[in-house]
């Protein structure tokens, strides 16, 4: 891999890779232009920003065609040149980033097209597109970064721009609160990320991915007792962005933003950034486990196991919660959490394989991006048609009134459930196969999650789209305009085909981790059943089980029968296992108390004692001085002489 790097650094004639800079900066330029000149030109602003993202997409395709299978990296821009921490910025093109570029720009483009219809009446139309472009810029920065610091910079910018997007309707209290929560939770994760970066920098002397990886491959023990800690700290960053337990609380609330925003940031980009980053620094998780003394109780547990378990717990918890949500966007939000959990699990498990490989996680990220964006946009279409009604129990019968939305939504759901022939089946199977190889517990957990996924998606379909309309809004719903349905159709197509082996996405990604990897069998449609029949059969069985159970319970139901069947557990699921309440009851009072104590000390001890003490001291000194101040010239003369002598003594003695 390094040979490639050198080769391309040396050759300076054809600099096709410099196009990547244009991919990165096009959205930033239009965002700035829109902000400065086009704030009142609604359609011009939209067109301008869409054109920029379209340009980025086209250029990404060109780059993909030119560089697939190679690694091109260079750091031409020195950002902060200080001896010892020379940080330069550059872009890195390899299988991982090339594919991710396509995902980000492609989904962003469709989301923006969809938004021209969805946001048409909003007074902040131009601001919306401007912020969206800014977000795409930051996300592309994360994708293209070739070193830790640059990734961290854009990572934070993704946090900031998502804050602006989630709080787009900032005068609604709920949206403003959700934005704040998202920002702070992400910051908490970034706390660990930066610490991890510092650890890696101090051990390897570099922040560049390529150099650090080469160094750690050559000296796997370079991080010493900090090896596992570094992995976990960096993972904290992913926990924030990819909303992993226990930092998952921000994502469902973030649904307060406009729905296309949810599609963009909570399906294809921001939350995927965490998984992408883990794959980028995958070399950290293959290091042997080693903990410092004060964490001695973790001795023997590798960082990758912690990653896998956090992912697994997130997947299970979120899937359980999704079963009892009634807001269509919240169901999708928890489903996103659960799928992200699976991806994180796949990263952790991938590192435990005999030939470490996180291809499954990236593959699922890729297919998930298209079908989850489709589902969110479909939900947006439904919400738009039902006059901003989001409760699925107030919908019903929509399949007749919104045929395009229904069919595409159905395709997205089948892909998410992992029904064979749909893209989700292939990627989920990869994850199941990976976990089957490394541990039966997490494998069964993943199968359970897949059954639950099928169950809650079937519930959503049965309640919202079938049956009879349960509100006047649903009864009068009309199909959305074509600006909104076309993106749905395109995404539906890719949700079907993206996983097929003909396109070789899975292999392409695996080769990033294992350059020599070639598959022998070639079956475009039913490969999983040949490759790892156990995993595939379990996955398929979970789908059938979940579907039939949901059909039994929810077919023709007018109210949710589950609370009656499950009682307290259903209530806990509906209340999201009380995480918000727990945090509200612990974290908030804790830091309020710390603030109160600090405030009290500042007010009464530091200010009180010192400030009121100093005037007192001055008063005493004044009185003392008054004794000296006799008004007698001779006394003054005496004091003056004494002072001079003192000074002389002091000077002579030194």
């Amino acid at each position, binding site marked *: 891999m390094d040979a490639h790097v050198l080769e391309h650094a040396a050759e300076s004639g054809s600099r096709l890779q410099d196009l990547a800079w244009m991919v990165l900066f096009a959205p930033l330029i239009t965002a700035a232009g829109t902000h400065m000149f086009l704030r009142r030109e609604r359609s011009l602003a939209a067109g301008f920003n869409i054109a920029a993202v379209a340009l980025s997409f086209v250029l990404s395709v060109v780059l993909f065609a030119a560089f697939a299978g190679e690694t091109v990296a260079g750091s031409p821009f*020195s*950002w*902060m*040149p*200080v*001896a*010892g*921490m020379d940080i330069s910025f550059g872009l890195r093109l390899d299988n991982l980033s090339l594919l991710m570029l396509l995902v980000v720009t492609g989904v962003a483009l469709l989301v923006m097209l969809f938004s021209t219809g969805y946001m048409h009446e909003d007074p902040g139309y131009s601001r919306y597109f401007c912020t969206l472009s800014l977000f795409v810029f930051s996300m592309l920065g994360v994708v293209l970064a070739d070193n830790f*610091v640059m990734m*961290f*910079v*854009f990572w*934070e*910018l993704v*946090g*900031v721009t998502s804050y602006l997007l989630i*709080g787009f309707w*900032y*005068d609604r*209290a709920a949206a*403003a*609160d959700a*934005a*704040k929560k998202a*920002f*702070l939770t992400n*910051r*908490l994760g970034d*706390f660990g990320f*930066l*610490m991890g970066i*510092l650890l890696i*920098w*101090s051990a390897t002397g570099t922040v560049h991915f390529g150099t650090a990886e080469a160094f750690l491959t050559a000296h796997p023990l370079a991080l010493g007792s900090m090896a596992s800690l570094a992995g976990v700290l960096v993972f904290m960053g992913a926990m924030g962005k990819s909303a992993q337990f226990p930092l998952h609380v921000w994502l469902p609330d973030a649904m307060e933003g406009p729905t296309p925003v949810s599609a963009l940031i909570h399906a294809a980009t921001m939350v995927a950034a965490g998984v992408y980053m883990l794959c980028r620094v995958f070399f950290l998780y293959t290091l042997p486990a080693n903990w410092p003394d004060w964490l001695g109780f973790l001795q023997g547990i590798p960082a990758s196991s912690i990653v896998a378990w956090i992912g697994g717990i997130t997947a299970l918890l979120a899937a359980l919660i999704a079963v009892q949500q009634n807001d269509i966007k919240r169901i999708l939000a928890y489903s996103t959490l659960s799928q992200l959990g699976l991806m994180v699990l796949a990263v952790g498990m991938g590192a435990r394989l005999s030939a470490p490989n996180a291809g499954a996680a990236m593959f699922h990220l890729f297919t998930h991006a298209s079908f989850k964006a489709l589902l969110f946009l479909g939900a947006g279409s439904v919400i738009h048609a039902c006059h901003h009604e989001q409760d699925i129990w107030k919908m019903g019968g929509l399949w007749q009134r919104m045929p395009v939305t229904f069919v595409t939504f159905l395709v997205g759901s089948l892909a998410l459930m992992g029904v064979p022939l749909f893209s989700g089946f292939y990627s989920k199977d990869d994850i199941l196969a990976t976990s089957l190889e490394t541990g039966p517990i997490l494998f069964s957990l993943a199968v359970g999650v897949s059954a639950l996924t099928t169950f809650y998606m079937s519930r959503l379909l049965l309640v919202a789209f079938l049956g009879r309309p349960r509100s006047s809004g649903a009864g009068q719903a009309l199909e959305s305009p074509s600006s909104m349905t076309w993106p749905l159709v395109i995404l539906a197509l890719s949700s079907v085909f993206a996983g097929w082996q003909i396109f070789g996405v899975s292999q392409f990604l695996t080769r990033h981790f294992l350059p020599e990897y070639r598959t022998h069998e070639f079956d475009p449609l039913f490969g999983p059943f040949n490759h790892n029949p156990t995993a595939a059969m379990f996955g398929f069985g979970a789908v059938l089980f979940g579907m039939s159970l949901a059909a039994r319970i929810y077919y023709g139901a007018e109210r949710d029968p589950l609370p009656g069947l499950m009682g307290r557990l259903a209530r806990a699921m509906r209340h999201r296992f009380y995480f918000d309440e727990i945090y509200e009851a612990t974290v908030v009072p804790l*830091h*309020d108390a*710390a*603030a*109160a*104590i*600090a*405030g009290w*000390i*500042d007010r009464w001890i*530091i*200010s009180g004692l*010192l*400030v009121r003490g*100093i*005037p007192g001291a*001055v008063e005493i000194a004044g009185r003392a001085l008054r004794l000296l101040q006799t008004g007698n010239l001779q006394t003054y003369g005496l004091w003056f002489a004494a002072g001079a002598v003192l000074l002389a003594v*002091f*000077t002579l003695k*030194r």
Partner: protein
Amino acid sequence: MLTFLILLPIITALVILAIPGHYRFVIRCVALLGTLETAIWAAVLFFRSVPGTPDFQFEQLVPWISAGGLHVNYHVGVDGISVGLVLAAAWVGFAATAISWDIERENKLFYILLMMMISGSLGAFASLDLFFFYFFNEMALVPTFIMIGVWGSGPDRQAAAFRITLYLTLGALVALVGLVALYAATGTLDVTELRRQLVDHPLPIKTQQRVFPCLLFGFGTLAGLWPFHSWAPQGYACAPAATAMMHAGILKKAGLLALLRVAWPFLPDAVAYWMPVLVWLCLGNLLFCGFVALRQRDLNLLIGNSSLAHMGFAFLGLASMNVIGLTGTVLVMVAHAFLAGLSFALTGWVRHQTGTVEMTRLGGLLRTMPFIGAAMILCFMAGCGVPGFANFAGELGVLFGVWKGTMFSLHAWVLAAAWGGLIIAGVYMMRAIRLVLHGELKPEWHEVSDANSGWRRLPFVALLVALVLFGVAPGILTRRIEPAVVEIVKMARHRAVPDSLVGATGAVQP
């Protein structure tokens, strides 16, 4: 050129003095033009200064007193450390003048005092003779007290003025004692002369031990070192916006600059000895002041406390005692100069429009003040260390520097605490945005106006541009700062007692 820059505000003040007090418009215009020119010249100076060299540039030396044992010269010059501060002083000075457009009462006197502050801080940053440094610093400090007393707001402004005067005068006095002791030991107050003398013959450790605490706590008080900080938030809350901008943004940095110029290169043994103490005090700034900021309901008090937390970063970088950390410190100083200037300018606008900075009484202002609101969001983001702003670059430098620092073994915990301080900053900054800008617009604020004309927006834009410029390309600064810092670190290696011995006595064990 440097002298001209320092004198420009003074000349402006003299012109204003000659204009009769009731020509208010003329006075405002003269002040604005004078500071605008200063700002432009400072920018020219900054970009003409040669990066990559530790030498003093634009140097000028005029012998003044040379009688008996006393040598005091007017000696100015800038190196990479001070050139950024000079730029910041001139720009923030301009912005402060521009946002004071609406001062009605005694505006002639107000502008004269403001010009003195600008000139004094420029002079302090440029002085290479410690006597003149002290003189310029006092020249800028005295107007601060008067301005808070006369144009300040709030019921307890007299108490605040009293407190700030008391603290800063005492701090300056303590620092003066240290400087006099240094003079007694070396016979010169000229930085270049000191450097020449001490490079081969470091001061005996006893002298260092005597001088250093005076400098640390004296100049530390001027810069708001915990626990000598409590003058700051209250003082800024009561001060008129321009004064708060100049003081919090600019003058506070003079104390830090003096420590960098004098204490760190010339008293390295004492620095090593006091390091653990300094680290703990930094944490006081970073965490304690952060928590105090969480409690505030007044926006100005919040910003005052948060600016103290930022000073914690600067001190922490000093404590790292290596090139990366010290470079980070200087970056933080410059960045914070612009940031504090911007913050107080913005709250000044809000207070002028609504008559209050009580956060719970405000709300939804982004609706009626899109420009000011957006600038405020950016400013608060910069305040909690978001990349893209100069502050992040500086903080990153400090964190990397502390990590690299081998002087104390606590570093992991110190780092975690420092970075934790930024998370606390996130909490209170987000809270402030939520309360002041987001949410529903209260009916009483339907009529408030935004900064609408380009002229009104200029000061805010100028400061924001600086923050973003140095955030996106911190190299512009670091290329100038680093060589000068390398000199300091080199000087600091010439210890009276070698490292190993200090380690053996346990002096540096925290």
